[in-house]
């Protein structure tokens, strides 16, 4: 192995693998990357064991791209491990950065999840009351499963993170930029969000925008949106105004309201609350009843407004 080559690792926690695909979607650049760096660890692409990493000296890895949230003990252990071994830890994708889709689990308790998945699910065999436990004696031996945490954490909740690359998944071009910067050593000072814009999505959205007035919010299937004008103005709960740009407005381009995957714009602490404030501001109701009617198209406010950022919200449901 070439000593000059960068040593990097990629890992996925509670994730769908989309971020890994996004890395692969950089096409030939992956090859260039491979030319510039040794990928020591990448569960979906490269053979490698935790033990190999453990064996490395601290800081041996130049960088780790960690996608996925922290859902269980294994995620957390590996996060700690990779943190120790990496000089730069990058949270890749919204799950890692803000909790992402898995983070929506924070809207309910662990007990509710277990109940729903293992006990109260119509596809469960009647009478089967099996619930995963951390230690299960099987045939005299004790199997160990990673502990299922009461809630989902962002990567930054368990370890120090140097960079966030938001997106679900991050746009391949952006991933490529980040990797290129990593390779060339031109990443900004630590703590930055990289691979994203400094303004909200509306900045790059190509739709025509007017002063906002929304008669009522609609479900996506209720209307065929006009392709030219702002989707929010048409009543779709577009998260664009409170979402960091950088993706290139991919969703609005295909007549789809922004879902907010790039997380809040710079300075915004709570994407969901901010969206609620923005959305509620543009309707014209003068009574509670009128407002309820106007908001009928927003059935699950928490889920819609915090689709990708619930674990990053100012407020967290009690886990006690």
């Amino acid at each position, binding site marked *: 192995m070439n000593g000059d080559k960068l040593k990097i690792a990629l890992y996925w926690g509670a994730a769908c693998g989309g971020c890994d695909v996004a890395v692969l979607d950089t096409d030939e650049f992956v090859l260039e990357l491979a030319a510039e760096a040794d990928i020591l660890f990448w569960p979906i692409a490269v053979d490698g064991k935790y033990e190999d990493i453990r064996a490395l000296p601290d800081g041996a890895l130049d960088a780790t791209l960690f996608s996925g949230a922290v859902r269980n003990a294994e995620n957390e252990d590996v996060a700690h491990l990779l943190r120790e071994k990496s000089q730069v830890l990058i949270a890749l994708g919204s799950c890692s950065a803000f909790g992402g889709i898995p983070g929506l689990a924070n809207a309910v308790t662990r007990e509710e999840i277990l109940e729903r998945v293992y006990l109260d699910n119509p596809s469960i065999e009647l009478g089967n009351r099996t619930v995963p436990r951390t230690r299960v004696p099987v045939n005299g031996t004790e199997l160990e499963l990673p502990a299922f945490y009461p809630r989902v954490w962002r990567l930054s909740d368990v370890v120090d993170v140097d960079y966030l690359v938001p997106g679900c998944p991050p746009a391949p071009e952006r991933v490529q930029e980040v990797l290129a910067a990593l390779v060339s050593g031109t990443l900004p000072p630590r703590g930055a969000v990289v691979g994203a814009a400094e*303004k909200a*999505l*509306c900045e790059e959205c190509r739709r025509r925008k*007017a002063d906002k007035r929304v008669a009522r919010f609609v479900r996506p299937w209720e209307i065929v949106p006009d392709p030219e004008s702002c989707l929010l103005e048409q009543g779709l709960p577009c998260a664009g*105004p*409170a979402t960091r740009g950088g993706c290139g407005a991919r969703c609005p381009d295909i007549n789809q309201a922004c879902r907010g995957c790039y997380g809040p*714009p710079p*300075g*915004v602490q709570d994407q969901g609350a901010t969206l609620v404030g923005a959305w509620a501001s543009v309707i014209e109701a003068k009574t509670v009843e009128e407002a309820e009617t106007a908001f009928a198209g927003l059935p699950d406010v928490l889920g819609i407004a915090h689709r990708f950022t619930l674990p990053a919200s100012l407020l967290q449901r009690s886990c006690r």
Partner: protein
Amino acid sequence: MSRPPLPRIGVFVCNCGTNIARTVDCEEIACAAMEWPGVVVARAYKYMCSDPGQEMIAEEVREKRLDRVVVAACSPRMHEPTFRRALASSGLNPYLLEMANIREQCSWVHDDPRAATDKALALARAAVARVVRHEPLEKRFVPMNPATLVLGGGIAGMTAALQLADAGQPVTIVERADRLGGNVARIDLTAPHLDSARELLLGRLARVSMHPMISVLLRAELEQLEGYQGNFTADVAVEGASRRLEIGSVVVCTGYKEFDAARVEGLGYGRLPDVITSFELELMLKRGRIEMADGRTPRTVALVHCVGSRSEEYHGYCSRVCCMTALKYGHEVKSALPGAAVVDLYIDMHAFGKGCEDFYRKTAEIKTLFLMYGKNAPPVIRPAGPKDDCNLLITLDEKLSGEEIEVPADLVVLMVGMEPREDAGRVAQLVNISRDKDGWFIESHPKLDPVATTTDGIYIAGACQSPKDIPDSVAQARAAAARILAKVAKGKIEVDAIFAEVDAARCSGCRICGTMCPYGAIEYDEEQKSSRVVEASCKACGCCAAACPSLAVRARHFTDEQIFAQIEGVL
């Protein structure tokens, strides 16, 4: 959130005699405050607002080089100006003060000294946390162009123009028609004193025409208005040519138009030649010939009130002047045709103005027959038969007798109501003001501010705001002039130090803030693709800041950081 370098804060706790000290342990607050980050001095005193109290603050500011001050005392609504002055006199920016209201909202409303002291501590702590994030603010000024554009050359417009011009300020009247005078020029006498409208108008007209400070643009229309209060640019089309005017204020006096009586089917206007409108009667009165279509002199003249007004079908509002005008016609018809009978069909007699009730009584005394019909049950007019000794028959459900009656008449005059001019919508859009559901321009506040609009620098006067008689229009026109003169007198417009501002580096141009501002202070820059607050128009409510999803709008002195700090502080 980056924290500013550690400030030097002074905390001053007022006992307010025993008003605060009786329930709140002021010394304890002062002691505790010393422990809070940034606090370099904390003192309690009998009366902070007294001269020695203020002197104490000033002295500490100087001695301890304080750069922030917290006063825990009464409501800021009471003494914030006092303490701001104290800061200013000691050389500190007055906005580096924060008050904790431990009297009105603490000592006076709670009995338990422990709980009250705890609450006062929390409030003081919050004030300290907040004041750390205060920044020095300065009042700003924008220049005030003394020139005014008056839209509409009716009685209101001319009055406003004269008021301003007499004060030596330049005025341009833009009138759509080819003459000044508006609707007043169409009437002969005014109610209730039967003064000559012509004389009123001639006086105004003469003064307007001869006034060196007034220029009149006839057959002219406003095409575009840009800028903000004190500094507008107006494009006016005058007989096809466009002219650009630099002005500081706009007074909109575009007046009204009369309701189209033909819309009320049962009255037969347009169908029956001897059913005429009030303005047509005015013309007859001016000519001295009150005649039926066939040239005969009517024996009975009927006046129908509320045509188009106070009805579910047409306009719900009262047009305010028609009752008195109808009474006036009662007098005029009896004067011109002493033998004629006058029948007056009304709903409620709105004789509310000065001298009007008296006029109503006098009209009754000359035997005008008043018949009352119900709202939404207008009379029906039909031609009389050959045997009737009259021309028309009016059927109505007379409310005061409870009888279904028919009234003979030779000439019927419809008191047509007022409605917004057809171009009111366009005007509203041009000058960025709103209209109510009936289409009248909306004033900034009906009681606080009846002539200003939500757009600073744009004023409304006269019947374009809602139906109005001449004295009320005149008063309004003058009120609008007062507002302008006040600003002109100062030569500049003071912009309060507290206003919202947009950080262009953060603004994504989503335009959510655009509809937040009731004052039209938020402008969207198409080129920069970002919004902008016109400081001169901002009233600092902070609504836009709360809506901004990018935190690009910042409400000065009520910033997110300050409020977050305060929340942390009180808890």
